């Protein structure tokens, strides 16, 4: 089953690769634009390995706002992983500590989405292998595209909106997870909450704000139905 689930994880995130490559190239090219090279680009992509926060670190330092602000921005952007990690943990009781510690390094939006949706119906090891397939596929795509970005620069055609692949895939993953009224409410409040928070100037905290509001709304609806 390990191989089957590994393959399922890979197949599930494969359509995302065209969407991730331009993003990785931009991240690599941004390091060159900031006056640095391959070492720093790989430092960000391998050591930090969290796309949006990598760009934030460069942006904040580039504006001269200081190391502490750069670090804080990265942490805030990455706070959502706390939710993913907790939600995944429920399905991984009994898995060895070393496997769980290894999962943390490659936890991304994509890997979480692929592994978590439908996890109730899978065994712990199946979820683990599906996660690994998705997570390491994302990792490899990210490193290759970062290196490409450093070497050839940001050669993404401006008029092809390939970045739209990413929200579309999340959309296709989230739809089957909307199985009852509370989950639908969680999604609606999560989405509206994030956009409203962004409009209100929450910046990097918008996503987390929306997600938390959605979780609270869904939970309340769930309890109301008991």
């Amino acid at each position, binding site marked *: 089953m390990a191989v089957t689930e590994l393959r399922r994880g890979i197949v*599930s995130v494969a359509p995302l690769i065209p969407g991730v490559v331009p993003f990785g190239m931009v991240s690599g090219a941004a390091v060159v634009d*900031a*006056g640095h090279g391959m070492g*720093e680009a790989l430092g960000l992509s391998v*050591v*930090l390995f969290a796309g949006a926060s990598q760009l934030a*670190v460069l942006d904040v*330092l*580039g504006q001269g706002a200081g*190391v502490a602000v*750069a*670090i804080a921005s*990265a*942490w805030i952007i*990455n706070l959502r*992983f706390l*939710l993913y*990690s*907790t*939600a*995944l*943990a*429920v399905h*991984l*009781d009994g*898995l060895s500590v070393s496997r769980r*510690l290894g999962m*943390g*390094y490659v*936890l991304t*939006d994509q890997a979480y*989405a692929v592994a*978590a949706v439908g996890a109730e119906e899978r065994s712990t090891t199946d979820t683990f292998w599906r996660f690994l397939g998705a997570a390491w596929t994302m990792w490899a795509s990210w490193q290759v595209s970062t290196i490409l970005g450093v070497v050839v620069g940001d050669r993404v055609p401006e008029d092809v*909106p390939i970045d*739209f*692949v990413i*929200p579309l895939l999340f*959309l*296709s993953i*989230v739809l*089957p*997870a909307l199985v009852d009224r509370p989950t*639908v409410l969680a999604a609606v409040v*999560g*989405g*509206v909450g*994030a*956009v409203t928070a*962004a*409009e209100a100037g929450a910046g990097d905290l*918008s*996503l987390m704000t*929306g*997600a*938390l509001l*959605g*979780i609270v709304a*869904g939970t309340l609806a*769930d*309890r109301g139905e008991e």
Partner: protein
Amino acid sequence: MIDRPDLWLAIVVAAFGTYAIRTVPLALAGRVAALPVRARRSLRMVAPAALSALVCLAVFRPDGRLDLVGDRVVAATVAGLVGWRTRNPILTLVVGMVVLLALERL
């Protein structure tokens, strides 16, 4: 020009905290699973809430400005309907991209 030691310090400390954020709940999996049923049930809401937040920010604020009737909203709506009916992720992607490209070319 960003100072090299500054950049590396930021990378290492940001990465350390990020790893902790990603890993601590996973490391405590046994305790998370031992949470009361009510608390565990709210974790069921994480995927709908967080993924919908990601999608909505990308669809309704593509350039950091609110756009409730933009090309991306139309494309995501059509793709969403297709995804809802077919449960086919690849078809959802293709339909969404084709609609967006068509709208942008008009």
